[in-house]
């Protein structure tokens, strides 16, 4: 159109106006919901607000990573539940990843038996509902294990019964902070050595001898620090007192079953991601690597996996998110996670459903966003490998 354009013919202005309008619609929609909820709660005389977080909780929790007693506040109970969720999610992700990668590679193995075992595992575990697996691990394990008085014992220092696993606790006589720092020093120095070796290899092609042992530093440094500073170590052996074992370190069966169920289940899915990732790397890559004289293991490690990772990481992120969210099934077997403690017991004692669910949702959302963030960062990092 040659004449002066109408404002709605200006694409920028138009887009802006539409976006503004949509934003406004969504905004007022949310506002209406919130306003309506508050009005209804008031009309029904249901308590509202977040003040309840400071009131004493009054109930006990079986597993607490931070100090908690019945007199602690609901806010503190929230923290306990959150940490318990985090604990099982982080360890679960770790175990599931290792198991999943192993299974995924095993399924592609040229060894018939290995491949079949992996296939059967994946197909069975992937297709049985997680909740059933959870009950299986919990009740099957509980029933199979003896009562505390008839515990299975290992050299009379470690015990296994249906109340959990008990091992001697190592109590440090001396400054734990220094030991923690020495672990850090070990990690940093191992990392620096690795980096140096890599640069060296890229520049000169020469392989620094013994670099594969660098991760050992993570253990060696603290041990040296421990010896040098003449710290003592005392073992506290669990012993049967009254109804159960006291002292030592213990894992409750709820935690063990939840961890097993979550990581075995998720591993089956990760295995499939890994398999598809590996299959996505074209065969020519293997052949080319072989033509260069590389052996099978380095081919897998240096050629296939780095390229496969680019395909694996995005769905892997989803599996990590799934595992974290699935951990909320904990309530079925009494593992005191966020959902069980906070949106279960606390919600029920206070009746403040809206606030409690809002907090719980926010926490899961933040956890998921954080996981995505980390994985996206890692993904970008890996994607750069492409040339």
């Amino acid at each position, binding site marked *: 159109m040659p004449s002066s354009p109408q404002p*709605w013919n200006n694409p920028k202005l138009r887009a802006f106006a539409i976006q503004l309008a949509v934003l406004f619609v969504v905004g007022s929609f949310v506002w209406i919901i919130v306003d309506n*909820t508050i009005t*209804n709660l008031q009309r029904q005389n249901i308590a509202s607000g977040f003040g309840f977080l400071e009131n004493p909780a009054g109930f006990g929790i079986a597993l607490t990573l931070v100090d908690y007693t019945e007199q602690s506040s609901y806010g503190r109970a929230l923290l306990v539940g959150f940490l318990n969720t985090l604990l099982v999610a982080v360890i679960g992700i770790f175990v599931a990843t290792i198991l999943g990668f192993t299974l995924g590679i095993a399924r592609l193995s040229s060894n018939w038996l290995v491949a079949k075992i992996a296939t059967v595992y994946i197909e069975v575990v992937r297709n049985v509902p997680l909740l059933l697996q959870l009950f299986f691990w919990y*009740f099957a394990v509980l029933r199979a294990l003896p009562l505390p008085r008839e515990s299975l014992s290992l050299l009379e220092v470690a015990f296994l019964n249906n109340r959990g696993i008990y091992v001697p606790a190592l109590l440090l006589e001396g400054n734990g902070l220094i030991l923690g720092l020495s672990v850090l020093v070990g990690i940093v120095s191992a990392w620096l050595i690795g980096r140096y070796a890599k640069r060296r290899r890229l520049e000169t092609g020469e392989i620094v001898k013994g670099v594969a042992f660098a991760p050992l530093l993570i253990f060696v440094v603290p041990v040296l620090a421990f010896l040098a500073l003449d710290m003592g170590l005392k073992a506290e052996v669990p012993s049967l007192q009254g109804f159960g074992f006291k002292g030592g370190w213990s894992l409750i069966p709820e935690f063990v079953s939840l961890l097993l169920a979550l990581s075995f289940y998720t591993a089956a899915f990760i295995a499939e991601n890994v398999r598809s990732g590996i299959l996505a790397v074209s065969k020519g890559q293997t052949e080319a690597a072989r033509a260069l004289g590389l052996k099978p293991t380095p081919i897998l490690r240096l050629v296939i996996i780095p390229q496969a990772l680019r395909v694996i990481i995005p769905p892997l992120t989803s599996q990590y998110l799934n595992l974290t969210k699935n951990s909320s099934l904990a309530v079925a077997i009494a593992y005191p996670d966020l959902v*069980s403690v906070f949106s279960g*017991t606390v919600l*029920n004692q206070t009746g403040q459903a809206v606030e409690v669910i809002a907090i719980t949702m926010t926490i899961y959302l933040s956890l998921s966003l954080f996981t995505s963030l980390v994985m996206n960062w890692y993904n970008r990092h890996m994607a750069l490998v492409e040339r």
Partner: protein
Amino acid sequence: MNNRLLPAVLALVVGLLAGFLLYPMFAGGDEAAPAVAASDDADPQAEAAPLPVVTSRSTLDLVRERGYVRCGVSQGLPGFSNPNDSGDWSGIDVDLCRAVAAAVFGDADKSRYTPLSAKERFTALQSGEIDVLTRNTTWSLTRDTALGLDFVGINYYDGQGFMVRKELGVKSVMELDGAVVCTNTGTTTELNVADFFRSNGLAYSIVAFEKSDEVVAAYDAGRCDAFTTDASGLYSERLKLADYNDHVVLPEIISKEPLGPAVRQGDDQWADIVRWSLFAMVEAEELGVTSKNAGDMRTTQNPAIRRLLGVEGAFGQNLGIPNDWAYKIITQVGNYGESFERGVGVNTPLGIPRGLNALWKDGGLQYSPPVR
């Protein structure tokens, strides 16, 4: 985008916007109420839309319109509320629900049941999914106030007890120092355990499940030394154990658990109907009126009985229901004593004696204000 399309899109957006903004002014009135009341089958938890949950219409009107009373019950607690193989519910909590239906409709069968876990029950009542909660629920101050509910009576006076395996040789709760205790989440039980062990300086650790069946299974598998809940619950859950003779209920009762029906706050008429449905059953027992003799009793000269059975006066009318409300309750459900003996009494598998739940004149606590 086509140029001629734009004004149409803008109009649509503005229209939507206006709709959303103006909606609250019209909503909340009578117009929105049937929409909520009619959504029987919809999952109330999924009710995210800004529809007002509280209707301005009375629960009685909604119940009448719908044609039946919706009661929240347990997920299966024999004696209190338990479905049989064909899905028919029975027990003293179910009887109370049936009494309300008989009072309102003259037909006890016009009642339906929603099984709820301890955790779900209050939300279900608050959101209007059920009309009355008759689910072995303890009346406590918080529940009566902050939760927006009203408890209207006590149909079973209870207290919290403990059960242990006989082989442990434990004779008293005081010997449970260091024990692992299994129970349900979202109950008063959870709080009482904490109070009890702490105030007696005893160590314990708690394993709390959402569903009773899991509590029983875990206790049966030996995960915990003791199983604690309302004493009535112990009698009842004990029947689910593999061999219940291997277990003993300890003599101590560590709390007061007055179990009774609850309704939403703010509908006094409905609260009255539920309250008096329970009282009518107690009053009938006291006056000697049973499901068998209620018909004949209508010709008696005893004024209290005549009032109760609606022969004299207009007491049903005051409640907003038919005058023969109590007569229907008694003939179709029975009096409190009949209901008790049928559900949990000494001749049932639970075998619970009347104890605190005897009538006041027999040394118990069940007492009805006069119908007059």
